[in-house]
């Protein structure tokens, strides 16, 4: 048998009908995660055709995008906090899931959170699964060696009705990352550097597999940060081979297998890493030993520089100029020292316990600078409880930051958590697109450490300098 990559093994294991020259593969989906924004119209289609949800038991729902990050006492509070349309969207979601018998982690569950945070922390995200969600950051789950990708609402309907998708087999892109990271440099900096290297369309048509000694040394939460932003490099999915770190993370989680089923699952997971000699359509290699913390300067995640670097020279490209004009930055000038209005620490990229610990390590015993608004939003209610048990919330509030309920929040500003026109926000989220955090808002993507450094100094700052003090 030919040597297969991790992706090929998962793909082969889920082909209900193999693809032909004329027809796409019918691919079975093991886990369908759903949230309130991209599902209402899919349920509408099923209802209008009289179709049931085929596998409610393989579907897991939560509320994250339109939800408030201030506490609510009852659903009646929603209208005032997020507005009537978002409140209606949440109610429709609750009704749809109740009618279909889909497990919903709602406001009362204590386990609600960002869809890409709760899957892993509950242990339902597992190696070798196919996982989809109507959200492009579904690539996050690939950190476990799952084939996980975002789909549109029509496809959400396909999965609800048939538990399958029609798919053409994508190409593979191996990204080899080697070198030992310096202090103050982390997973977010690696993935921003990768996107800077391959470009925002560089992974189009491909599934990425991240490999190499640096990746192997990362924790699961760091691996999730890397896979999360695969889509920012154009790849729908990014995967990392399961290993002891993966298995150790999953052991004992509420929805992970247990007993004999656990042993069987681990045996299966151990066979997933690529065979020696497996081939990839493309390979890219990156040495991160000298990597600095990375920040974006423009309006897509590929417009990224080392924090101590300068914005690239003007090439005369109209898109580049438009981007710099929107951001209010100048070609050839540093980003360091620019005043900051808002700091957002959260999102499916960087809202897990280790991210919050990193931010707290810099905020401990320090104060948020002057007029900077700092919002810290845990990825899930579970993360929130864990952080509070460690006293991280008190570190944040003592420093002058806001500590909120979980949700997508200011990553995309759907719930009213927005950045005002012209304001500069250093954000641990994944997209610095124009208007992403609010109309006219300017976003600089960075790691939790770099974001915390900006909170303390009120300027774009190198976290390594604060760590050294």
């Amino acid at each position, binding site marked *: 048998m030919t040597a297969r990559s991790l992706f090929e093994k998962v793909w082969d*294991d889920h082909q*209900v*009908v193999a693809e032909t*020259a*004329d*027809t*796409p593969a019918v691919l*079975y989906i*093991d*886990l369908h995660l759903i949230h309130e*924004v*991209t599902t*209402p*119209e899919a349920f509408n289609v099923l209802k209008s*055709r009289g*179709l049931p949800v*085929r596998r409610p038991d393989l579907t897991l729902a939560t509320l994250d995008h*339109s939800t408030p990050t201030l506490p609510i006492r009852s659903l009646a509070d929603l209208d005032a906090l997020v*507005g009537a*349309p*978002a409140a209606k*969207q949440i109610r*429709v979601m609750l009704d749809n899931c109740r009618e279909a018998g889909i497990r919903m982690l709602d406001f009362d569950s204590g386990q609600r959170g960002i869809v890409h945070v709760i899957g892993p922390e509950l242990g339902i995200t597992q190696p070798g699964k196919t996982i989809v969600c109507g*959200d*492009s950051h579904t690539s996050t789950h690939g950190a476990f060696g799952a084939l996980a990708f*975002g*789909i*549109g*609402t*029509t*496809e959400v*309907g*396909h999965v609800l*009705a*048939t538990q*399958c998708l*029609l798919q*053409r087999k*994508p190409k593979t892109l191996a990204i080899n990352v080697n070198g030992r990271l310096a202090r103050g440099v982390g997973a977010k900096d690696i993935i921003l550097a990768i996107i800077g290297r391959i470009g*925002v*369309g560089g992974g*189009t048509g491909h599934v990425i597999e991240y490999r190499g000694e640096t990746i192997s040394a990362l924790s699961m939460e760091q691996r999730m940060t890397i896979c999360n932003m695969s889509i920012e490099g*154009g*790849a729908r999915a990014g995967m990392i081979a399961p290993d002891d770190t993966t298995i150790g993370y999953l052991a004992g989680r509420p929805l992970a297998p247990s007993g004999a089923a656990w042993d069987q699952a681990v045996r*299966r997971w151990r066979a997933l890493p690529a065979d020696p000699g497996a081939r990839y359509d493309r390979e890219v290699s990156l040495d991160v030993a000298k990597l600095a913390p990375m920040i974006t300067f423009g309006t*897509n995640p590929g417009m990224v520089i080392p924090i101590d670097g300068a914005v690239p020279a003007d090439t005369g*490209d*109209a*898109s580049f100029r*438009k981007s710099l004009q929107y951001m209010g930055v100048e070609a050839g000038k540093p980003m360091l020292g620019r005043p900051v209005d808002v700091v957002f620490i959260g999102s499916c990229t960087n809202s897990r316990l280790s991210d919050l610990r990193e931010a707290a390590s810099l905020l401990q015993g320090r104060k948020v600078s002057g007029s900077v608004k700092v919002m810290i939003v845990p990825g899930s209610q579970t993360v929130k409880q864990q952080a509070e048990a460690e006293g991280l919330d008190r570190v944040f509030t003592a420093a002058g930051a806001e500590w909120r309920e979980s949700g997508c929040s200011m990553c*995309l500003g*759907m719930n009213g958590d927005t950045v005002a*026109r012209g304001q500069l926000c250093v954000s641990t989220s994944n*997209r610095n*697109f*124009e*208007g*992403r955090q609010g*109309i*006219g808002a300017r976003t600089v993507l960075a790691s939790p450490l770099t974001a915390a450094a900006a909170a303390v100094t009120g300027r774009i700052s190198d976290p390594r300098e604060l760590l050294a003090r």
Partner: protein
Amino acid sequence: MDKITRFTSRTVVLPQSDIDTDQIVPARFLTTTTRKGLGQALFADWRYDSAGQPRPDFALNQPAAAGCGILVAGHNFGCGSSREHAPWALLDYGIGAVISTGIADIFRNNSLKNGLVPVIVDADTHGWLLAHPGVEVTVDVDARSIRLPDGRTAEFPLDGFSRYCLLNGVDQLGYLLQQSEAITRFEKARAWQP
């Protein structure tokens, strides 16, 4: 879904590279529970100023753009979020095809499911189209090509199944539902259960 064999329309040009789905439909319009009426939200932050008035310098607001059914965009169109609201908004506005040198995977998939034709062309053809806004272009799904006013044609990639679905107005859910016996067999026969 309507059947699409070929159609001819004038182009409107947005030369910006990497136009993401947050530009096509900003997130604040996603609190809807229906696909209808999203044309008003199309490119909202580029189309309207802070007072909600149309910006006269934006291509879609210019008189020549009225009735244009083909969007020619810079490299790598549709990157970012999976929101199907993006093709819904383009279709609702009256755009039937998007032409670029590259179109992001999820946006492309979503477009094909809704009858918005994603057209990826070579750099020369693309450069010519960017430089000649408002020309009449024929998008031929049957021939998998576009025809320019001077009679030149440029092919674009479209797999056989997607082409069949566009030509026949086939809804892919119907095709998947026909596979239900194979799906049941797969569920029963697999070595492990999720």
